[in-house]
């Protein structure tokens, strides 16, 4: 589903964020991307979202070589990938409903169909009753769930998350991870960047560890290997 071949990213100014990273994430697989702050986790996710472009190597997503993807097709490509941020990136000038409906509005769904999907996503994250509220009135955990609802409302094949539990207490963080596992169970490929080792080691999924931009370990947990077969 996602394949990195010797991918390096050097930022202007000479900082090497990623050095010759290679790995492959299979369809329906769930993996954690871990490492200290500054190890290159966010950069790796940004490369998949084409928010940054690799200086070297090839990235294939769903068979498409991102180096050769025409600029015009980037929006279409991004619509197939859901993304969740640590700071959830919600817009506080509109309601919860409108936040989640944004990807559908962009893709051109009718209001009726969009409404159906938004409510399905809200139901999934357990916040069906909050659709008319402004997200600023919600708690951190609830805001993150709205962020997740927005990421999955489009029914993407791939879900990326960058420190999705970074601002949450352990209990809420575990709930969010549980939610991710549920999405994974219905076939969504997941790559979740997190430095919360105590949480993610408990979850028994594949773990990719970055250190100073280099992939230093790739441990495939037995249970997760069975699942992705």
């Amino acid at each position: 589903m996602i394949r990195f071949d010797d991918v390096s990213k050097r930022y202007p100014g000479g900082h090497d964020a990623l050095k010759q990273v290679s790995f492959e994430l299979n369809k329906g697989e769930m993996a954690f991307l871990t490492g200290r702050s500054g190890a290159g986790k966010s950069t790796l996710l940004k490369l998949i979202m084409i928010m940054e472009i690799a200086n070297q190597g090839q990235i294939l997503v769903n068979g498409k070589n991102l180096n050769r993807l025409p600029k015009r097709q980037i929006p279409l490509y991004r619509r197939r990938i859901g993304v969740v941020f640590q700071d959830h990136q919600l817009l506080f000038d509109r309601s919860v409903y409108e936040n989640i409906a944004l990807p559908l509005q962009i893709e051109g769904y009718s209001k009726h169909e969009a409404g159906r999907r938004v409510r399905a996503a809200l139901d999934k994250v357990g916040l069906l009753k909050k659709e008319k509220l402004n997200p600023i009135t919600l708690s951190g955990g609830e805001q993150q769930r709205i962020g997740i609802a927005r990421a999955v409302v489009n029914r993407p094949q791939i879900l990326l998350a960058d420190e999705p539990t970074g601002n949450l207490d352990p209990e809420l963080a575990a709930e969010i991870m549980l939610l991710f596992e549920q999405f994974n169970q219905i076939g969504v490929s997941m790559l979740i960047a997190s430095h919360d080792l105590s949480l993610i080691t408990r979850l028994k999924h594949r773990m990719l560890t970055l250190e100073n931009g280099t992939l230093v370990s790739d441990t495939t947990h037995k249970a997760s290997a069975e699942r992705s077969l």
Partner: protein
Amino acid sequence: MRTEPVKAKAVKDPALKARAAPASTASQLRSRLQHHREMAGDSLHRLWKAPLASLMTITVIGIALLLPALLSVVMLNVGGLGSGIDDINQITLYLHDEVTESRAAELSDDLLSNNDVRSVSYISADQALLEFRDQSGFGDVISALGSNPLPAVLVIRPSTLDAAEAEQLLQALQALPEVEFAQLDLLWLQRLQGLTGIIERAVAALIIILSVAVLFVVGNTIRMAIESRRAEILVVKLVGGSNSFVARPFLYTGFCYGLLGGLFAWLSLLSLLLLFAEPLNSLLDLYGSDFVLQGPGILPAVVLLSGGALLGWLGALLSVMQYLAAIEPR
């Protein structure tokens, strides 16, 4: 987007099964039209929410559009002054008293055969007196004179408007024995033509300069609007919004600014003309002119509104494109 009451039935749909087919083409088109409508409404709403800032921008655009419009109206009216061009462009030959009417007729036939002469008309001394009496109001005084002090006149229209050629013709006519004095009335016309030529160029230059000014005023306003909606643009781009989707609200805002600026300019133009029409017409009356101040018709309204809207849209486009290019991944 309206929020509808929650429908219990719809919620049963599982959130994430296999990916469903993307929205159909017809639905996408409808949705795009819908987005256009919403963004048009949204941009007006935003202008309304910050009335002072909007009013200042609109006023600046309006004034920038008003100046060339005002000059155009001035030019239109000066052009109107010169519309009697044929009457002005003439050589008047004052004949000697002893030239008889038949000799004058012969002479005018001779002159007509000259290629440089377009037409000749003869005004006898008696006719001239009658005209003068009617037009000047000095009828009684003239009657008191007893004899007619006015000479017979041949009025010649040269076929050329060129000053040098007309001057040559004047010299030739002056040399005729029957002619006591020849007068060329071209100079005034040329001055007028020179003046309108200058104003025409000034209008053209002003239109260019002030159009650029409008572009920058709108561009800068839109740049600030973009700054204040950075987070939104980032999110829209990340969930797969195309550049045109991102640009749409800003283009509508620029369009509205331009359109309202054009409206401002047109209304100002109308008020200024109303303000000046009365005193100007009475002043011109004093000079015995039958000139009437030409008001702008529907054309200036169309030009100002559409030109303003176009410039506003273009200024916004420049600003948005520049911003979108800056956030492209490298």
